[in-house]
């Protein structure tokens, strides 16, 4: 069975030039994997879920706020003690813990969402290709297993221009 084309580049300039060449061949879904974000290297065809992170953090924040309100009202009612001439349910005094838990839950939701969405996102690149990444090895992957042999050869040629190594 044919595999995806995996090209390894020693420097970002070479990788970006290869992506340019791939664009010339109408390949816009090439995936890139590197040790640091490479500006201008986003695959156009891939499904971007990053905009959902803000909404997930907001949901986390609202959950935290709700938990803080419920916790403070429930425990203060259970204690039933008037302290400092304030009423049992004292929203001004509860504000601090509400703020803290809102931020805590927002942060936790953001982190968990990142981990889960990253796990989904990286499935587009094979494990073999991912393991090639290092500080001096930038990997470009083209999912070319279903391409015709001629087109595959043309893409391979684009990748080989500046690549240190091409697999597949």
């Amino acid at each position, binding site marked *: 069975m044919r595999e995806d084309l995996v090209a390894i580049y020693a420097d970002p300039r070479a990788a970006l030039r290869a992506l340019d060449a791939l664009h010339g061949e109408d390949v816009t879904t090439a995936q890139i994997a590197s040790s640091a974000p490479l500006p201008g290297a986003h695959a156009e065809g891939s499904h971007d879920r990053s905009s959902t992170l803000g909404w997930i953090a907001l949901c986390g924040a609202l959950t935290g706020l709700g938990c803080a309100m419920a916790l403070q009202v429930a425990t203060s009612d259970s204690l039933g003690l008037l302290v400092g001439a304030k009423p049992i349910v004292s929203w001004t005094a509860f504000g*601090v813990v509400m703020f803290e838990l809102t931020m805590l839950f927002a942060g936790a939701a953001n982190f968990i969402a990142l981990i889960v969405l990253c796990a989904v996102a990286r499935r587009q690149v094979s494990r073999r290709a991912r393991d090639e990444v290092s500080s001096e090895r930038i990997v470009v992957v083209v999912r070319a297993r279903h391409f015709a042999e001629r087109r595959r050869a043309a893409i391979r040629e684009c990748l080989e221009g500046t690549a240190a190594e091409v697999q597949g």
Partner: protein
Amino acid sequence: MNDTNASSAPRGSAIERDTLATLSRPSRTYWILLGISVALVAIGGVAWTLALRRGLGVLGLDEPVMWGALITTFVFFIGVSHSGTLVSAILYFTRSPLRSAIGRSAEAMTVITILTAGLYPIIHIGRSWLFFFVLPYPSDRQLWPNFRSPLTWDVFAISSYVLVSGLFLYMGMLPDLALLGRQVRGWRRPLYRFLSLGFAGTDGEWRLFETAYPIFAAIVIPLAVSVHSVVSWDFAMTLMPGWHSAIFAPYFVAGAIFSGIAMAILLLSALRRGYRLHSYIKAEHFELLSKLLLAMSLVMTFVYATEFFMAFFRGSEAEMEVFRSRAAGPYAPMFWLVVACNSVAPLACFWSRVRRSLPALIAIAVLVTVGMWFERFVFIVTTLARNFDPQNWGTYRPTVPELLICLGGFGWFAMLFLIFVKVFPSMSVAETLQAEYAAPAAEVEASHA
């Protein structure tokens, strides 16, 4: 400061090798420093054991001064913790070149100092094994924490802060842990692979990371400000003279940033020297930090002056007595030490020669660290020692076990930091590489244009 390598920026594997140099086999100096810090922890541990066995009587705490050196150390470490994550997050948003050099160490400093600070209230309560009573959970006691108390706010604020700061540090380390998981051999490989949570550096992951990280940084900044404000309210929400003041929250936040910058200078200079990171932690980074230190010193001086002005302008006898006692009472030497360390010594940073001299900056940072501990001590103790009722005035002297417990905290902080730099990358490889990638990316972009 010698920056001979600074002009030729290192690339690829050189960046990786240099920034991960802290993970190399420990040197003799490292073992000596670790040994000293472990010894300090052991001494502090023995003193704490003594306090647990014989009771809080072995500490110098007595009516009217029930908060002493332990709470001083708690407030001091919370202050130091405050600025690490805050500064790192602000530097991220300002796209400052300082961030790749100091961000990771500052974040680690935050997490470690807050873990250290959290020990002191637990020690201070005496029956430390009952600490969990402050947590809200249904129990047979039918007692709940009082959510109107700043002390309960403190528990939530500090717990939230340590968790969020820890996650912020961890999130920033994910790409480096992934890189290490592929590069290193031996027992560390499975550890890093597990801790990297599968992060592989694909395009999709980087896009998610670059969205999630600023969200997290935006969460961290107000949280960091809130934590030190809440700690200040432990004092300001009381009616005690010298404490009951609206200036306390900004005063604490400014003091926290001040002490945090001083600690950052000390830690970074040690890292730079110990691991020859001159190409990454540059002279101009220290110069920027020294300017920040100077600015915060001026803010602190303004706050000290405002406190005195307000006390005497208001005309409250009790308030005036507290401040009179600070400047001319039994604690006057400490107060003037604070002024010398926090207000006078940093003024030397007005001279560019001082800002560019690392030994001079280290000396100033040490003075500020000492000054900030004594500042916390002076404002806590003078208020309690000179409260509303002159019949109830007193003095407080920390006992030897108390001081040893405080010293143990410094050892604990140093020990955890030394372990951190040996197990985790103390500079961000990904961010240093990202800066290196920017130029070729711009070049390719320009060729398109």
